[in-house]
């Protein structure tokens, strides 16, 4: 039992990273119906931003929570701005076309970014050690090891989810986001600036990816330029399983993804990778619109 609980905790730790990444995925999808295949690369950019921020500002040492928050903000802002720039040049001209065009454009941008980073001399192909933002401390409760940093990350992702949910439900920009997601043309007629709303969405999405990159790097401190590729896919799956377009769904999907992955790896490590996909596919087959997604009625 203790072992099961322990695995559950590991699953939640992993899931919190997927969840943060999936939030950005799901917001972008909800608003412009686009599968952003390079979303994982925002995580990579974000963790490199953390790396450079820490080594330039603080040297390479453990920094306190306040400084860590500052670094997170810097990395989030930098990555968010890059996200807005990419949207402006690579996706906005495609908005009136089939969503798959933007997806292919995203794949192209992803290839470009990853390989450009590999060539830039001060980033390069060699793996780098990510700086630890906070020291790990393990406390044991009833035979279950709890990692303080991981608990902070889990709580942090729940808090972010709460804030975002509040923003989307209760503020003007949030209302505009919902309106654009519902009907782009009609909301433009009603006076929303669709371009600004989409830019804001990309800023938040990429910024969250950067923050999840910081947490990711804190837990798995090896930075490479290709680190985001598979993670992006997993976040995509989390978002879809939770019901794409729904923030609560993305968080739920992320946690489920993490827990399934850990539990299956523990029982059948040889086949874990395949089986976790099968589990997710089965969830989708029984609930085709995702766990929290509302069935969409198609009107003719």
């Amino acid at each position, binding site marked *: 039992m203790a072992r099961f609980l322990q695995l559950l905790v590991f699953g939640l730790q992993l899931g919190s990273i997927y969840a943060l990444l999936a939030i950005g995925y799901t917001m972008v999808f909800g608003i412009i119906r686009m599968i952003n295949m390079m979303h994982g690369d925002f995580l990579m950019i974000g963790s490199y931003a953390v790396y450079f921020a820490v080594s330039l500002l603080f040297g390479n040492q453990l920094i306190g929570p306040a400084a860590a928050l500052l670094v997170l903000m810097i990395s989030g802002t930098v990555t968010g701005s890059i996200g807005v720039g990419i949207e402006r040049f690579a996706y906005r001209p495609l908005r009136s076309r089939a969503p*798959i065009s933007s997806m292919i454009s995203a794949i*192209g941008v992803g290839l470009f970014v990853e390989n450009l980073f590999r060539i830039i001399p001060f980033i390069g192909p060699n793996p780098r050690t990510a700086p630890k933002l906070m020291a790990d401390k393990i406390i044991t409760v009833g035979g279950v090891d709890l990692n303080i940093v991981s608990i902070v990350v889990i709580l942090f992702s729940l808090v972010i989810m709460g804030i975002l949910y509040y923003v989307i439900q209760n503020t003007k920009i949030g209302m505009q986001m919902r309106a654009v997601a519902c009907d782009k043309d009609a909301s433009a007629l009603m006076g929303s600036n669709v371009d600004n709303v989409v830019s804001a969405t990309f800023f938040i999405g990429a910024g969250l990816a950067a923050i999840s990159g910081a947490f990711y790097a804190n837990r798995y401190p090896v930075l490479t330029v290709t680190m985001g590729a598979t993670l992006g896919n997993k976040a995509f799956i989390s978002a879809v399983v939770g019901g794409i377009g729904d923030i609560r769904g993305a968080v739920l999907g992320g946690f489920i993804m993490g827990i399934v992955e850990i539990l299956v790896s523990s029982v059948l490590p040889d086949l874990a990778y395949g089986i976790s*996909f099968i589990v997710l596919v089965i969830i989708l*087959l029984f609930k085709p619109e995702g766990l929290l997604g509302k069935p969409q009625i198609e009107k003719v």
Partner: protein
Amino acid sequence: MNWLKKNRKFIIIPLIYLLVHVLNQAKILNNYILQVLMLIGINLIMVESLNVLTGMTGQTSLGQAGFMAVGAYVSAIVTSILIPAKNFSSAALISFKIGKIGFQITSIPQNLIFLLGTLAGGVVAAIFGYIIGTPSLKLKGDYLAIVTLGFGEVIRQIIRVTPIVGKSFGMVGIPKLANFFWIYFFAMLTIFICRNFMDSSYGRACMAIRDNEIAADTIGINTARYKVIAFVYSAFIAGISGSMFAHTMVYLHPDTFAYTKSTDYVIYLYAGGVGSISGSILGAAALTALPEILRQISNWRLVIYGLLLVLIILFRPTGLFGGREFSFLGLKTGGIKIFHFSDLWSWIGKKKSVEEAGK
């Protein structure tokens, strides 16, 4: 001569083959270029298979490489384990020379085994297509994309732990039975089968589903049935392509069929021009050759490739070929401009502005 004029494809297609063969024999087209041409052929079949599913029926698939893997491994098992081709004489049946140009017809039994393996690969892939296609009927768009992506990854994971196909060591000892002739033959066959499919009542039903599923349902098209047909058909073609791949590369590794390979084919399809057969030919050819051409600038290769991809999508909305068709293929697809060879010069010369035909 009149008949030939109407059916120029019967001259042009064999002539292209002959030209490549002669150039290769004359050492002008070296084996490297031939290898790239063979890869173009294999990718062309794959893009055509995706075209049936995505371009014609509107079903997103991110797991096409999974079907390819099934075809590749099944055909390789047939030709190297079940009926080992190496047990049969590989001596050429006929071989003669005209000047410096050698011609030969390779060993009949080996070719038969190869065709048998290819068929088996296609059929087993088609069965998988049915297995994936049926439960996915109620899923649409991105949800379907996830299921197909999952399928591809599950196949890869199964191959990784199956001892008979060499687990993650990769499968060696596959006879090199595919050559340019067979790949060219199957690529052309696929193109014509797809053309006929597009023109048949099945193809029209599929296109109706793509354009508006509810409307298609209302006018009495059994949407579920046609979607499954498209899945099975597409998987079969992918399986054939897999067999060509296996017998060209003669070494298979599960990671070759990762999801990035599936997304590559989606890219080829859309960059060339979705829904148009000539577009998929051109997309497969251009984007298979592009990374090879960019080898000159080794380090910057993938950077430029990514950039070009974005530019193609941004500036050629209907794909590189702009939704046109080669006229000699004899394609009659309503609304799409027929592309004549004579147009090629004006197209290159003046860079005519492209009507957004597909829109």
